[in-house]
């Protein structure tokens, strides 16, 4: 394949587009270093006071740890459920397979506000509101379709002859799965894990319905904070969130290259 040199006008257009997309995100960095007491750009003085304030804010810190552990648990559960499910969907032939697959990935298409309302109504009767279990279950509804879809695509493009070769060499079905299928699926698993983690960590709409004074996640806490106060603390929090996201992506990149994890 030949890579063409981008022409100058095209280069400028791309730069403008990127600037348009990233400007608000970039703006957050100077604002987080503001010494002012209100959100304002450009800041009139500079300091780290809002980072200090953030680390002294117990509610924020608590919400951060809730979000982190929630995202971790949801990611692990998503994989534990989606890997075997994807295997069954891709490798087994049975009636209604396509229907089942579409059903499992349907939440991707539903408006999240509708999902949130529905989950609120159902969870209320089970006493799952404002509990960790409730949040985990709700987040799984959104992360599972992503995981299932990514893993199904990975599995479908995997060379089945490798599994067959393992069988002919004497490997029993479970051995084939753990020694051949699963290791070959690693790029898909890493991609699915990264996406599940970020989706869960980032989720606001559904979580809003399920959180309360007892338990809250970082995005919801930030939302509430901005609702009441307009100081640069949220900017400091945003910067840390951006860095965390970048960190996750870097890990994926280091592990296998982004292209391979998400595109293949």
């Amino acid at each position, binding site marked *: 394949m030949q890579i063409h040199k981008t022409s100058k006008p095209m280069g400028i257009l791309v730069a403008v587009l990127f600037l348009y997309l990233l400007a608000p995100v970039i703006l957050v960095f100077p604002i987080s270093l503001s010494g002012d007491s209100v959100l304002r750009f450009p800041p009139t003085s500079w300091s780290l006071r809002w980072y200090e304030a953030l680390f002294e804010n117990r509610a924020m810190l608590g919400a951060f740890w809730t979000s982190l552990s929630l995202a971790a648990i949801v990611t692990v559960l998503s994989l534990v459920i989606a890997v075997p499910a994807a295997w069954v969907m891709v490798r087994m032939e049975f009636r209604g397979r396509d229907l089942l697959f579409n059903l499992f990935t349907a939440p991707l298409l539903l408006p999240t506000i509708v999902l949130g309302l529905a989950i609120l109504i159902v969870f209320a009767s089970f006493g799952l509101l404002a509990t960790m279990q409730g949040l985990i279950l709700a987040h799984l509804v959104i992360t599972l379709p992503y995981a299932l879809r990514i893993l199904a695509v990975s599995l479908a493009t995997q*060379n089945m*002859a*490798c599994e*067959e*070769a393992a069988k*002919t060499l*004497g*490997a029993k079905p479970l051995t084939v799965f753990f*020694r051949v299928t699963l290791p070959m699926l*690693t790029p898909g698993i890493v991609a699915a894990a990264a996406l599940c983690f970020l989706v869960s960590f980032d989720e606001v709409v559904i979580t809003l319905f399920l959180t309360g004074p007892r338990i809250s996640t970082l995005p919801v806490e930030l939302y509430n904070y901005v609702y009441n106060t307009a100081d640069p603390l949220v900017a400091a929090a945003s910067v840390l969130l951006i860095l965390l996201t970048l960190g996750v992506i870097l890990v994926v990149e280091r592990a296998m290259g982004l292209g391979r994890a998400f595109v293949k």
Partner: protein
Amino acid sequence: MMVERAMAAEAALGTPEGPDHLVLSEVGMTFGTLDVIPSLSLSVRRGEMVAFLGPSGCGKTTTLRMIAGLLDPTRGRISVGGRDITHLPVHDRDMGMVFQSYALFPHMTVAQNVAFGLEMRRMAKVEIRARVERALAMVQLGHLAGRKPKALSGGQQQRVALARALVVEPSILLLDEPLSNLDAKLRDEMRVQIRSLQQQSGITAVFVTHDQVEALSMCDRIVVMRGGHVEQYGTPNEIYERPATPFVASFVGRTNRLSGRVDPSGRLLIEGRPVAAEGRLPEGAVEVLVRPHRMSLRAASEEPPAGLNSLPGVLTGATFVGDLIQATVRIGAGEITVEQLTRRRSGLPEPGSAVTVAWEAGDTMVYPEGRA
């Protein structure tokens, strides 16, 4: 019926001896409403290498996969060394298989790939290391043991796949179009190497291919398949010299087709002229097949050679291809090709001139008309 004929032919000619090792009896495979293989019976002797040869869709790969256990036959019975394995799970079959795509495990090194089958057999670590080393030396890849498959060339991957299949000393080696992804030169080398490895280890092998050269040059016997049936089962020589059907004749090597009749007295006539053939001839309309390089060409003015079949025709064209001249000759309404080795001084008659085409009686292959 085909098998009977093939067996009769073997009895006459004498082929690699040894007891039957792999036996398929009336094996059939149906996918949905599609009868891919109606009923297939054949046997492979111990230590023999047999090719399944045929065009794509003839059922050769399906048959191989049924032997491997990757497909469950709808009907019939498969046995190895007298033991029924028809419904035995793949992992208990003790077969080595080389796949068209090689199917090396991408996350394992070359050595780990080769060791996999031995680990499945719960062999001691020391023993595994020794065997892997020996197997890799056998395919001249000892120096690449630590590489990942991706870092190897196609030919090297092919040899790893072969070592991985052979290292477990399987009862039968199955090869599914193993050479089709290699370039021409490498293919020639691997043909020789696979055959010599098979003969050294004395393993029974089944080789699926659509390439007649591979089948003819590498295998003790060839099963020519079409539409899920065995067209002919025999040695390369039998398949080439005495094809059981016109399909076999035209699939293995090239042939000319002429129309003829056998009259009630048993004489074969083409374009009204008597032609000699060997064996018993079917009465009525027949198809007569002669290989292009078994025919010779001379000017009509020359005396037709004595003792040979000869037919008059018109030279319509000639192509010089170095060591060969391919001449097209119109005989009656049909056109045939004659191939002659070139000599420094020999010239062909002018195109458009009258010529005589001649061949030996033994090179005349006669089939009843209408049998494809």
